[in-house]
């Protein structure tokens, strides 16, 4: 879905609403599947829906996205099928990765989702290479790589920003700063307390944006994507966001943060904010939003049924896909 005017069209706004809602409903259901023991834990993206939604609303289907251990929202925003995603979480043969990768490794090359990655910071250089390929082959594709505030302290980000800058690569580095890496607050781990500022050492623009506002994300990424597409090089976007749940599985976030803080962010919930915007500007009405909700819920339910009914991979799948060919 692309958008060229500075104003955001009604179609795009409703698309964003539906995407964010779908992500939230998917994650809620995926958590239930985990609670039932069908997968042993996951990194929930609830609270962070706006970041990939805002950006992906501007991407072409052949643009690339690369993610992290917490990537279900990136995948959904980029258009990966819910059915195959849910099946992957349950380790089924019909999953995006045939059940071999699971929650931290969802990939769907046909949708431009070049993979989630469980090693923090590991995907950033890979994404830089994806952008290099687009540049050398002159395909006009843009690459977006998501990572967390924690990952911003890995050397891989710094090496990649430098490479991307000296080669003017069409890449956008998107840091989802949800304030915590596991239990470690970013104000402790990030010297200078600004991740966006880290771009200046590499002579690339660094933008801080309210990651709970899908409209703000949209506006910032529009500039970054245009810059990348026109050959001017990379941008670093720091989106201030919040994960509502614990880091993983049963982690209790109140061991390192406060309820007051949680409430502060939940009051700025990205879905609620867009809803208010849509209603107060009379872009749509409640009835229509209810319909979108029903539709999203139905697609998640269908995906869940599909996943549960799907078979596990055959035993011989253990040995396939290790190499393309090997003799």
């Amino acid at each position, binding site marked *: 879905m692309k958008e060229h005017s500075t104003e955001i069209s009604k179609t795009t706004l409703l698309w964003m609403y539906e995407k964010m809602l779908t992500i939230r409903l998917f994650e809620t259901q995926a958590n239930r599947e985990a609670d039932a023991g069908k997968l042993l834990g996951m990194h929930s993206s609830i609270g962070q829906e706006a970041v990939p939604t805002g950006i992906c609303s501007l991407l072409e289907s052949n643009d690339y996205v690369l993610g992290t251990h917490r990537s279900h929202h990136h995948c959904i925003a980029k258009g990966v099928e819910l059915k195959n995603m849910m099946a992957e979480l349950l380790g089924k043969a019909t999953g995006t990765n045939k059940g071999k990768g699971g929650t*931290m490794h969802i990939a769907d090359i046909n949708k431009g989702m070049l993979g989630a990655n469980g090693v923090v910071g590991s995907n950033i250089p890979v994404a830089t290479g994806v952008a290099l390929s687009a540049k050398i082959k002159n395909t006009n594709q843009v690459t977006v790589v998501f990572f967390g505030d924690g990952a911003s302290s890995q050397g891989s980000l710094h090496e990649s920003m430098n490479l991307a800058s000296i080669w003017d690569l069409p890449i956008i580095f998107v840091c989802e700063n949800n304030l915590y890496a596991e239990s470690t607050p970013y*104000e*402790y781990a990030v010297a200078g307390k600004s991740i966006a500022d880290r771009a200046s050492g590499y002579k690339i623009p660094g933008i801080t944006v309210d990651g709970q506002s899908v409209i703000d994300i949209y506006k910032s990424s529009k500039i970054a994507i245009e810059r990348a597409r026109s050959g001017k090089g990379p941008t670093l976007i720091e989106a201030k966001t919040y994960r509502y749940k614990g880091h993983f599985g049963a982690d209790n976030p109140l*061991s390192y943060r406060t309820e007051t803080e949680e409430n502060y962010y939940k009051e700025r919930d990205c879905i609620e904010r867009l809803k208010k915007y849509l209603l107060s500007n009379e872009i749509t009405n409640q009835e229509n939003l209810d319909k979108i909700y029903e539709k999203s819920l139905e697609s998640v339910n269908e995906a869940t049924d599909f996943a549960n009914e799907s078979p596990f991979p055959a035993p011989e799948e253990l040995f396939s896909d*290790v190499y393309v060919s090997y003799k």
Partner: protein
Amino acid sequence: MRKISYIQAINESLRHEMKSNENVIIMGEDVAGGGSRDDKLDAWGGPMRLTKGLVKEFGRDRVKDTPISEAGFVGAGVGAAAAGLRPVVDLMYVSFYGVCADQITNNAAKIHYMFGGKVKVPLTIMTAMGVGGNKAAQHSETLYSIFTHFPGLKCIVPSNPYNAKGLMTAAIRDDDPVIIFNNRQLMGLKPTYDVPEDPYTLKIGKANIEKPGTDLTLIGIGYTTYLCLEAAKILESKGFSIEVIDLISLSPMDEETIIKSVKKTKKVIIVDEDYPRCSIAADISALISEQAFDYLDAPPKRINPPHTPVPYSKPLESLYAPNKETIIKNAKNLLE
């Protein structure tokens, strides 16, 4: 005697060594938790809770939460060790060694040799490993074999709370860099082992005969020792006499205990959860073939996972790793 878990055993060792030697510090992601928040001290106590409570006793200066910068803080561990501290560094999962391999293999392993034996690196790296968590290819590897390849590194793999405590203490007091590999499954087991409260050390480089036997030697490493003992129970109930060796130390390796046992039983199975190529199992098999060939009734048998990454899907994952059944099946092939 009291029974404690594997995690408590490591924790006790760390607590005692920190108390008795102020040069011991701990660094790693969330080893305390909560960054610099004073009201959130000990928010995590380590990703596996190995360091739980330590920050309350020793403070954030000695129990240091790090940013996610393995090259940085593992390398800092090397330097701090070279300059007089005894750092314990937590590398959460062994697969993340890729981020800091340079520091481990080029610096920690080689400084003592390259500098003519004049600089010591008393660094301890603790890391988690193993399948069984439904965590796929990047969070389930075993990988200890790789580190045994490097002269200068010591590699130890405890198999129960008792030897975990003694080996951890020995590692911290050792003047060489030591990597201690903690298996995910062992950390999840209920406490069934007697563990003394007072500190003690076990000798790095020594294997342990867990139970003597005469018909077959099973060699286990960490969790596979547990599996070997379980398999041995069943095999003994069928009338076979099984010797189980817990390898414990991969580098240095107790060749003598292995060779002595194999000369006695004449049959051996090595059970190893690491990839099969260039594995410790392959190394042991070569050792036995060279030094006890004439005594063998059958070629040394290795049980490893296949030459593939660790799959996510639970049914595939349980096919992947050695288990009690595969050990029994292979043992029967040799015994019957």
